[in-house]
């Protein structure tokens, strides 16, 4: 049984059908890259996986538990599946350390001292041990995104969903974030990441999913998908990148 199992997923915004029947399983410890043109439904797929979007048909389960829109179920789900966004979304009124401490304290009831220890540890893990007391606007984009990763890690999720987490960064800052993600992958974290970093996908991911017009158009190990694209759509997509 995959950690995240998706069957026949359909999602519409009004009359615009964005996901047209997705079947996908992500195993524990697996690192999956989701690639595809803008508008192909990559973000929507990730957002459905942690309940930020409701869906009309199909089924998503995480560790066997269905993803619904019931608030209690959602919170239970999100304890196991974290998400990192393109825009970092740090809480601007809190320090880096407090950004990380907040959810463990109010969601899990972790005592402040322990939350502080956890925050220091995860910030260290993303290379920002020194930035505990810095406010988001005092950090570079790359540092902010690493704090966002630390913030998600502090909840000890089983899987992380990453939606173009380096797309808002200046090119020279992309690598520091990817290095952190690579570290997580090596530590066995389950990752589903929408990305345009093809080299990263090739080097780090176990499988690559090419989305096209709301469907999983091609799927396979990076060696196959990148070296041997079977469909003209993927060939064209990869061709545009070079």
């Amino acid at each position, binding site marked *: 049984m995959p950690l995240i199992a998706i069957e026949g997923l359909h999602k519409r915004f009004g009359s615009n059908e964005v996901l047209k029947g997705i079947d996908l399983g992500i195993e524990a410890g697996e690192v999956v890259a989701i690639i595809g043109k803008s508008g192909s439904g990559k973000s929507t797929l990730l957002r459905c996986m942690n309940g930020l979007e409701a869906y009309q048909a199909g089924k998503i389960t995480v560790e066997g538990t269905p993803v619904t829109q019931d608030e209690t179920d959602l*919170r239970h789900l999100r304890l196991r599946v974290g998400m990192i966004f393109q825009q970092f979304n740090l809480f601007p009124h809190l320090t880096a350390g407090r950004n990380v401490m907040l959810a463990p304290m109010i969601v899990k009831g972790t005592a402040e001292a322990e939350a502080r220890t956890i925050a220091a540890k995860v910030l260290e893990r993303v290379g920002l041990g020194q930035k505990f*007391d810095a406010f988001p606007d005092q950090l570079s984009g790359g540092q902010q995104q690493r704090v966002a990763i630390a913030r998600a890690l502090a*909840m000890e999720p089983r899987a992380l969903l990453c939606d173009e987490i380096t797309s808002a960064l200046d090119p020279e800052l992309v690598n520091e974030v990817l290095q952190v993600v690579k570290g997580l992958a090596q530590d066995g974290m389950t990752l589903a990441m929408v990305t345009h970093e093809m080299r990263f996908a090739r080097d780090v991911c176990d499988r690559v999913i090419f989305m096209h017009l709301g469907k999983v158009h091609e799927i396979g190990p990076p060696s196959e998908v990148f070296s041997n694209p079977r469909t003209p759509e993927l060939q064209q997509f990869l061709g545009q990148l070079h």
Partner: protein
Amino acid sequence: MAYQFDFVDVFKYTDVLAKGIAFTVTLIGVGGTLGIAVGIFGAWARGYSRMKWLDWTVGAYVELVRNTPFLIQLFFIFFGLPSLGVKLTELQAALIAMVFNLGAYSTEIIRAGIEAVPRGQLEAGASLAMSRLQVFKHVVLRPALQKIWPALTSQLVIVMFGSAVCSQIAVEELTFAANFIQSRNFRAFEVYFIATGLYLVLAILLRQGMRGLGNWLVFGRRSP
């Protein structure tokens, strides 16, 4: 013969003025604090509660207050409610009217601040397994208040000036005091000149106070 100014005639009534200031400060202090609390609740109810009836009720309340004169609200509470068996002292009625009035205006002001908080912040909170109420309390409220703090301050000053209307039900606030002194010594110019000056000082102090409070509670970069 030119009018002879005589301020000494007013200073005889310093105790009346002092009492007036005390009442005005009470009205704006208590009314302001509770009014803003109502505003925070109202903003939550309208934007976050997901309870249709509550959203609707608060919406109706806001429209009622914003589309009727404060004086009539005050008269209704003081003169009207006793018919329903609710008897209030002048001060109680005035405070309720102030809270009722400011609550509605600050509901709308705070709601605007809440709507200005980027959606991504809310989603980040939600994706960390926070409940909607936790997101509101810990993620949304402070940045929202930061955005609208100047507008809220202005509204408080307006409401403080509005408190002058409470003299109409014999709450002995500053305007009441001025009217009272003027009716005794007929020194209208002097009395209202001084009253104007006192309101000016109170307004400046209120703005300063709100700045201090804001720096401490809302903008404060405390790291705890």
